[in-house]
């Protein structure tokens, strides 16, 4: 059922509520389709806030992936393009090359960026396209119902590895981010999370950095955000965050991987 947000807000104010926080104008009023506790919603908010705070809305074009964020453009109140599965960075390349004055970013899941889109991702980074890539790593294919992702951990169960991921059958968890950091075409590579207030704050700084970098023409800024997919992992959101801390973070350690050299 569609909720009339405006009416709800009015009702709350009428009951004496006080406005202490309002969401960025760069998010529409469409309620997120994401599961409660999922990182996609927070990641969306942070990216949209940064664009508003930098005053670059009129100069920004986003690229949505295929994955749970496929309808990101329903939530982002900015101009955006929906790309075929895995092709977001090629689409972003086409936009940026013909519109070098615009801020361009892609937003992609781990299946999108690190499986079907591996070639596009690697070569976009290798060409040093002047874009930002936001990479939502939840170790699973959320949208299609919890299948194994290239980033799934060893032993992790999913609908296509119901007995757990085995390296000799399914290969190893792929940390494409670390590989990409080795390429001269990447300028800034960092791995973040959004499950605590502290992590949200550092993640937002990283996102801001990624956009600021585009002014410098120095190559790709890649921000990986490790999040839970509580539905795909078959856990409650708090359980999923605990599991993420205990299992995902050791495999995908948070922090900067490649930072611009100070000149």
């Amino acid at each position, binding site marked *: 059922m569609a909720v009339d947000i405006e009416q709800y807000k009015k009702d709350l104010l009428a009951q004496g509520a006080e406005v202490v926080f309002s969401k960025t104008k760069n998010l*529409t009023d469409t309620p997120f389709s994401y599961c409660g506790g999922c990182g996609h919603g927070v990641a969306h908010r942070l990216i949209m806030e940064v664009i508003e705070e930098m005053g670059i*809305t*009129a*100069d*920004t*074009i986003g*690229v*949505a992936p295929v994955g749970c964020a*496929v*309808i990101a*453009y329903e939530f*982002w*109140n*900015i*101009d*955006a*393009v*929906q*790309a*075929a599965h895995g*092709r977001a960075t*090629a*689409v*972003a*390349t*086409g*936009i*940026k*090359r*013909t*519109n070098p004055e*615009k801020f361009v970013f892609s937003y992609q899941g781990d299946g999108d960026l690190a499986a079907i889109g591996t*070639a*596009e991702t*690697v*070569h976009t980074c290798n060409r040093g396209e002047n874009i930002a890539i936001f990479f939502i790593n939840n170790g699973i294919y959320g949208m299609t119902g919890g299948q194994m992702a290239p980033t799934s951990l060893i032993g992790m169960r999913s609908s296509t590895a119901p007995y757990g991921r085995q390296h000799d059958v399914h290969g190893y968890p792929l940390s494409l981010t670390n590989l990409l950091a080795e390429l001269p075409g990447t300028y800034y590579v960092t791995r973040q999370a959004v499950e605590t207030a502290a992590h949200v704050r550092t993640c937002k700084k990283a996102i801001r950095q990624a956009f600021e970098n585009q002014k410098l023409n120095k190559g790709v800024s890649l921000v990986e955000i490790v999040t839970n997919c509580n539905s795909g992992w078959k856990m409650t959101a708090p359980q999923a965050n605990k599991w993420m801390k205990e299992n995902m973070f050791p495999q995908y350690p948070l922090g900067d991987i490649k930072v611009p050299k100070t000149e």
Partner: protein
Amino acid sequence: MAEEIQLLKGNEAIAEAAIRCGADAYFGYPITPQSEIIEYLAQEDPYNKRTGMVVLQAESEVAAINMVYGAASTGKKAMTSSSSPGMSLKQEGISYLAGAELPCLIVNVARGGPGLGTIQPSQADYFQTVKGGGHGDYNMIVLAPYTVQEQYDFVKLGFDLAFKYSNPVMILSDGAIGQMMEKVTLSAQVPRETKDYGWNVLGKSENRERRYITSLYLQSEVMEQKNLKIQAKYAEIRKNEIRYEEIQTDDADYILVAYGISARIARKVIRLARAEGIKVGMLRPITLWPFPSARLKELAPKVQGMLTVEMSAGQMIEDVRLAVEGAVPVKHYGRMGGIIASPTEVFINFKKLFNIA
């Protein structure tokens, strides 16, 4: 101003036309027999030396067509080119471009298949080009040049049609037209310009709603409405954009139907036939989609037979048969594997197929 005439290879004509008609970007991946397109562009370096047109060698045809998708989303005149195996890789992107109703130009300088096939010319991509190729109900406007001049002219025409209908346009050429050299009358340089078409993403300003480019409609009712809208557009294109050329069809007893390099062979067959007193004419479809079905149907009762001359096992023949609705026998003659039949060979087989002594 004096006419500017230059001797150009078919592939070079595509590249020069792109620069001159004000194209904003070319994205491609090398493959014979069309690599001269990107090589010519790289040599000319229009980004730095002429118009500011972007030229980029992508890591694959998949990436190239998606770069086109990105550039086209912003209202830029973007194009790509390839040959048959590369065209297969582009099909996903073409379906998305058609679904999102984005204008762009795609060139296929076709070679023989299936599989890796041969680098020699072929017309065996007809089905892929006019019957879909990618998934879903969609069509591209398909232009089939048969001279280097047309190869040149169809670049501008292609972009014009693409933007008029917000739809991908394909130039279906072949290795022979791509590689041959002919005189080309060049057009004047048109400046590049980006307009606000009301749909292209340029960055959302305060005073307007956001724009997004998508081909996703999760609710079936909405998806069906979208399909109906696209189909209505196709009906409009069928009404307005059918192009063909007729040669000596007025008194013809037989009509050859051929496009591209085969139409040049067929033109010679007409001469051979008329020298023997057999009245042969030709209809050359210039648009393969939309197809000149109505005209073929009109001509059918006036003739004794139609022969499609195609460098394939016979693909366009299906559309000719559909067009004439059984009113006249339709046969096919063609060679495969990149072999170009000689006019004499086609003529002998034409007589055999129609039992002409």
